[in-house]
């Protein structure tokens, strides 16, 4: 019933600005891509390297994104501290792996040397997430939406700076695993072993999580609680327990992702969770928040975009050192997806129902 011309003008301006954004963005990407391809600076081998790196990095984002998506699905809440849970996992694994490395265990049993720290990281991260949920989130259930979000921001800072207090502001180097150094020759292309292992491990974890959610009793209960807490409670489901196990499960995935991340980047520090956390959230929204396969797809899309993007279209636009703006690509995607398609790529069905 908008009648005043001023308001109509404002609506027009809003949609004008929105369309302007879209057109500008698409044009920039197209022009940049065409320019880069015509300049022909990179060989196809390099492009494949970019994509493979994108996949392994994206599978890590996907693994973290699962936690965001599951918690959002159940509580409609952005678990801002999730990125820092990822960090706690990386730290736990770092200390265990360093000790194991000192005893020579990792060199003699590389597979166990990889798996045991991952398992330990999952347990520690899950435990910390349960604590955070108990202290900072559970008492606030049912409060206005901003209240738990602010509490989560508080939890995020608390975790970061508690770990800074424990372990200092420096960056630790994750111990090297000799078996993972070098390249594998796949179809005539050399691909770094670490990247393959990370991607494969991440996909296995995702498959495990997916089957837990789809085929076990707890998973069924989780899905029921995310449909409706009250109905689930009436059906005899202990809602609190299911919420806690959702947090723990998501956090365990994030903890594992922390180890995989430190395998690739070899750096463990108290602030390492912030950027991957935001990116994983982007991935979750990209795939449609609340949607588990969506989180996986979103993570991969984001990872590849971020890895290929700087060279593909930023460089073509004449930007110097485009690699510096890698994070800006992810953030731009975040803003754009929230603007134009908050229901995500795969998320339409679910979000319209629960918005």
């Amino acid at each position, binding site marked *: 019933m908008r009648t005043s011309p001023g308001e109509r003008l404002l609506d027009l301006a809003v949609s004008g600005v929105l369309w302007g954004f879209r057109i500008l963005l698409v044009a920039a990407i197209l022009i940049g891509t065409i320019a880069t391809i015509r300049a022909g600076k990179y060989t196809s081998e390099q492009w494949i390297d970019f994509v493979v790196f994108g996949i392994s990095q994206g599978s890590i984002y996907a693994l973290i994104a699962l936690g965001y998506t599951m918690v959002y699905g159940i509580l409609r809440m952005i678990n801002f501290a999730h990125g820092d849970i990822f960090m706690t996992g990386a730290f736990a694994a770092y200390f265990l792996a360093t000790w194991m490395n000192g005893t020579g265990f990792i060199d003699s049993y590389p597979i166990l040397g990889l798996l045991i720290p991952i398992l330990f990281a999952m347990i520690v991260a899950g435990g910390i997430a349960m604590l955070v949920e108990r202290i900072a989130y559970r008492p606030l259930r049912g409060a206005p939406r901003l209240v738990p979000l602010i509490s989560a921001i508080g939890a995020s800072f608390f975790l970061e*700076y508690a770990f800074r*207090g424990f372990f200092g502001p420096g960056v630790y180097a994750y111990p090297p695993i000799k078996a993972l150094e070098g390249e594998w020759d796949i179809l005539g292309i050399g691909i770094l072993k670490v990247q393959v292992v990370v991607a494969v491990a991440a996909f296995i974890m995702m498959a495990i999580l997916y089957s837990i959610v789809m085929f076990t009793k707890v998973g069924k209960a989780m899905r029921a609680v995310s449909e409706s807490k009250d109905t689930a409670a009436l059906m005899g489901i202990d809602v609190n327990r299911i919420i806690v196990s959702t947090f723990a499960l998501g956090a365990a995935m994030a903890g594992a992702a922390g180890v995989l991340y430190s395998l690739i980047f070899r750096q463990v520090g108290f602030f390492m969770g912030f950027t991957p956390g935001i990116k994983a959230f982007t991935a979750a929204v990209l795939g449609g928040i609340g949607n588990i396969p969506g989180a996986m797809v979103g993570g991969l899309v984001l990872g590849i975009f971020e890895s290929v993007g700087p060279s593909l279209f930023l460089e073509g636009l004449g930007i110097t050192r485009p690699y510096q703006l890698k994070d800006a690509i992810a953030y731009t995607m975040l803003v754009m997806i929230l603007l134009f398609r908050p229901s995500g790529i795969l998320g339409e069905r679910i979000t319209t129902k629960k918005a």
Partner: protein
Amino acid sequence: MKKENFLWSAVKTGLIVGVVAIFICFVGMVEVFSKRDVIEKLITLGQFVLLAAMFSAGFIASRHTSSLLEKNKPVSNLVAGLVAGLFTGLVLALLVVVGAEVNLRAVFLNATTTLYDVLTLDKGVGNVWILPLIGAVAGLLGAASLLLPQILRRPITQALVFVIFMAFFSGLFRVVMINQGSDMSKAAKYLFGQTGLTLEGTLIFFLGVIAVSMLWSYKGKDIQAGVTRLPKAGRLSLRVIVYALIAYVALGLPQVSGPFIAQVIVTVALFVLMGLGLNITLGFAGLLDLGFVAFYAIGAYTVGLLTSYGAFGLQHIPFWVAVPIAVLVAMASGAMLGLPVLGIRGDYLAIATLGFGEIVRLLAGSDFLAPFFGGPQGIIGIQKPCLGTLGPFIRVDVPRVCNGLELGKPQDIYYIAVVSAVIIAFVAWRLRESRLGRAWMAIREDEDVAEALGVNLIQTKLLAYMLGAAFAGLGGAIFATLIGSIFATSMQLIVSINVVSLIIVGGMGSIPGVIVGAIALIGLPELLREVSEFRFLLYGATLIIMMLAKPEGLWPSQATRRELHHTEVEAGVKA
């Protein structure tokens, strides 16, 4: 349902507090705090913190016992407190014993021998039994404090809090008082030692506060009644006197306090200013804007580019012209960014604005835009404000000469910040009482209902967002002038979080609350080096605790107070 045994509950309390105490040790607080005394040569702050933990274990256990037994049973309460304190002490003792055997330092940086020395009062691991003993006594006292009648408990608590406060700031007060002259300096040396209060000082403060508090609880009602009985003119003049006093202190403080404190006060004033800006967006309209720092950066860079005599300066115009331009630019970018984003709801908006903030920072610091914004090197040589005429611009890296009064010192910038803050506070206050303000509150409470009642959502939100952006820009502009240079690295998310935290601590939507929040969150940590190391840890904890315990903040606005305590008010009316 069978009730828990109160002793078991006390043991649990003791263990949990013990774990918290270990956390405090490992995070490094105990060691850092033990460098400062509460009472000189008697107890350090580090020991005090642990003692407080044991004391509160006793207090909590005692309260649990009362609720489990459904009444106060002095003996059970005291026993529960004793047990809880004992177990807290035992957990800490365990830490010392384990620490003596295993090298915990391989993981936890702060598990140093200094820490163990603090824990065993420098008496060595052999005397570790002293810890549970102290714990039991402290727990007993904690339990006893619950049993004290209200009339005694409140003065003692207030006195304790005041003594701790004075101990924290003893160094500061000492310096300020010694600067005042020989009489004051004698008093200062009597009350404050080098690192903390003297024993005499502690006693004087403690007893003094108890006396005042007791007096107030007997006579306070009479005084309040006396004030309300005053004629209208009388009350008005009383209020004017109070405001004048506050203004006198606020304006005179930087002159007497010396450069360091002046710098801190400027920072506080700057954050008050930004807090007032974000208060419109977050407090009135309920839009959580985590990208506030983007507009701060835009304001800072605008002033930098317009006034700098460095290599990136474009215009070399005076500060007074540049600031309004900066505010307008920030406001316009607020509109540009706000228009698309404001369709998004609640928590998504927070994340989207966070994305904006990060994009602005990355772009400003990138090599790509370095020819315009200086990239990582930033913009330097920002012209100081000048009351009078500026000399001509000669060449790069030579400041323009000021014919008149140059406002270069932090104290001078302080007045600019205070004047701006007063203006913003006035604008915010008038806006809140206006039709627009009521529309904002309506949106904050329920968007759908507000829209159904005829509030144009986008327009109303956009105005809040633009005003917030404008004030952030003003803050950034003043900040740039204060520091004299801008670097993209100082435009971190942490600035936004700072501002959000101070609003939440002070009370969303409350104007005095912003000032209280800024003093508590920005001023105190700046003044106390010991605390500033843990400031973000404490911010995090504060945000959580505020949300759990007091979501309306320390100084809530009338409306929020009414909303959150709706039921209580109603009950009061019925009774």
